[in-house]
């Protein structure tokens, strides 16, 4: 049991209030990852109905707009999100069965064909030769062929761990360029639409995309995908959700190398990433920036969270947004403390 409340009071207004068609960008760096904040978004959106009898009557539950969430994760598996959410007291598996939460798996089969299809084509023995020298003649190959085929039958318990995640949609990147992106977009949109169709009209649909910049980095202009295409891709998804939360890496090599006055080589991966990150920040209503302490590591501070208005902030009076810079600390048990500088 975390001793802290799962949602720190300082963060609650930011987590639970996303106006229509707003974009929130969470930027992270290598030493200050964004997973904990995504989990807090999940908790803020899903916990009202999940355990309404447990949660205290906070101001978030007055509106009683229950939410549905679609989480697209390109870097982390379902198991990670499930176990980490459980530490917050959020049962994602149950919520998924209730169709209130949908996980879209962008990790396991994004660039690789599914294990069952590939296993028949794996050329075992073509290149595996044990340490024995002079053994890479083709003679062992026919001997291994039936062995590999036979092993498929008894390897049923040896399958990758996917029984639990098998009913989540897996994204595939096939081919190149915009057609490949469109296929992924279509998969996500079909999930979004299905969620929307089954929800009431007062239910808001929140789309969270975790590290979509991976898709750009791992493809790049060599495969016909640049920052413009990615930005359009995000735009296309945004139209199908009430609000969108994105996480993106903002490490200094990825952002600052793109400037022309930096000596050294600028590679497409840096220029495209910077263009995407800056473009998204300009479109965002809120930018949550995570970084490490500039003054070095501290025992009781994990990093700095800066909340600022993005370029898409249009001065609406109804939803106020205070710009803030806070420190946060993730405890061993998963509890979170958020506090201002100089406070404890």
């Amino acid at each position, binding site marked *: 049991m975390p001793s802290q409340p799962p949602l720190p009071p300082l963060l609650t207004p930011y987590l639970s209030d996303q106006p229509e068609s707003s974009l929130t960008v969470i930027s992270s760096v290598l030493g200050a990852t964004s997973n*904990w904040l995504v989990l807090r978004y999940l908790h803020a959106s899903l916990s009202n109905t999940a355990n309404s009898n447990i949660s205290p009557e906070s101001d978030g539950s007055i509106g009683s707009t229950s939410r549905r969430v679609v989480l697209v994760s390109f870097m982390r598996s379902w198991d990670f999100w499930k176990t980490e959410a459980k530490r917050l007291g959020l049962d994602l598996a149950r919520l998924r069965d209730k169709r209130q939460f949908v996980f879209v798996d962008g990790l396991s089969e994004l660039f690789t064909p599914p294990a069952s299809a590939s296993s028949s084509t794996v050329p*075992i023995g073509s290149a595996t030769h044990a340490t024995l020298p002079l053994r890479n003649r083709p003679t062992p190959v026919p001997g291994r062929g039936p062995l590999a085929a036979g092993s498929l039958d008894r*390897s049923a318990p*040896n399958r990758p761990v996917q029984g639990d995640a098998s009913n989540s949609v897996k994204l595939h990147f096939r081919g190149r360029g915009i057609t490949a992106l469109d296929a992924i977009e279509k998969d996500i949109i079909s999930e979004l639409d299905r969620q929307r169709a089954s929800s009431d009209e007062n239910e808001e649909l929140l789309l969270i995309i975790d590290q979509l910049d991976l898709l750009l980095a791992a493809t790049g202009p060599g495969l016909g995908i640049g920052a413009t295409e990615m930005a359009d891709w995000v735009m296309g998804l945004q139209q199908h959700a009430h609000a969108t939360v994105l996480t993106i890496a903002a490490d200094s090599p990825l952002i600052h*190398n793109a400037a022309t006055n930096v000596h050294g080589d600028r590679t497409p991966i840096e220029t495209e990433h910077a263009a995407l990150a800056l473009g998204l920040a300009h479109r965002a209503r809120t930018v949550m920036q995570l970084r490490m302490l500039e003054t070095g*590591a501290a025992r009781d501070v994990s990093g700095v969270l800066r909340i600022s208005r993005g370029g898409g902030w249009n001065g609406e009076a109804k939803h106020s947004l205070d710009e803030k810079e806070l420190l946060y600390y*993730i405890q061993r048990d998963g509890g979170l403390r958020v506090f201002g500088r100089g406070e404890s």
Partner: protein
Amino acid sequence: MSFRKRNVGLSTGADRSAAVSSQSAPIEPSPGIRPSPDDGRPTTSTGAPSLDNLLAGHAGLPMGKTILIEENGTTDFAGALLRYYAAEGVVQEQKIHVVGVPEQWGRSLPGLIGTAESLEEKRSDRRKDEKMKIAWRYERLGEFGAGVAGSRDPPSQITAAGGESEAKPAFCHAFDLTKRLTHAGISNMSFIPLVPSKDSPFAAILNELRGALLSSPANTIHRIVMPTLLNPTLYPPSASQPEHVLQFFHSLKALMSAYPTRVTAMITIPLSLFPRSSGLIRWIELLCDGVIELCPFPHSADTVATSGAATSVEEPPQGMLKTHKLPVLHERGGGSDQNVGQDWAFTLSRRRFEIKPFSLPPAEGDTEAQDAAAPGGMPKKSDLEF
């Protein structure tokens, strides 16, 4: 929790069967795997005890995680760590997959000289005090092994201990870099060559790894070893295209998450060829679970270091070690570990790779410089007083 039960079951003669039956369920049958003291997830040893201790309180590398060792300069300290890692896997009879290097690499693994705790005991005989707090777990494990050797008659207990040889319960072993490993499991290593192809050079590697994981029995533990990734003498130029190498890392991550309890990987990369300030390396770091950077001192530094770096019994440090990212900890948000942000120094000697907190030595030979500087630049204390 499980640890206490095990201790009770082995040391006391009474009520053994009950204790054994209750403990055998949670304990992994595979040798070389033990639950993390932090959160109980299975971990395996990297072959270097001090590196194990660095990994965010898990006292080992959690299963299903990738660790990236980066090295500056032309030295091969990272290669030594990688050999320890592979040798530990051989001794624990895990399946090793070595990518990209010829089979001679497997013959140069360091020789086994015993368990890590036996070496530690020998050392701590010299300075026997409670300074070894960080290794208390090893001490207890040593007792545990002795207990098995002393009372070995009940067969159920032997199965619980994992086998008959006394080396089995050991989590981590000590290796000697000047000797060569002779072990039956060494022929069990598989070497995955880089086959030239017009497509991604990593596709064949992934297929191979996936096939090996799929076709091996479910209790086999695998280690993936990738020496000097992207080194141009091993890898074709197209390998460093982001769409190839980053897709490979992503697929490797997917593979690890599909078999979360059966694989670990250690990868080294030369930073002099691929600096950390490039976006490509940063993405590789983001895709790995642990990132450790080695910054060896220039060779002239060891003459400086001998003047006062450490006491006479300890070797001078050979370089700095930086932890940029630790498995599990940073995935959760990071920052709460006492090891993060410390300055670490490493020393590679014949028998161990040791990581210690780095402390600047008192500048011994610098007194003349201070004296010379005092009359000119620095005002004396009396001048400052009113």
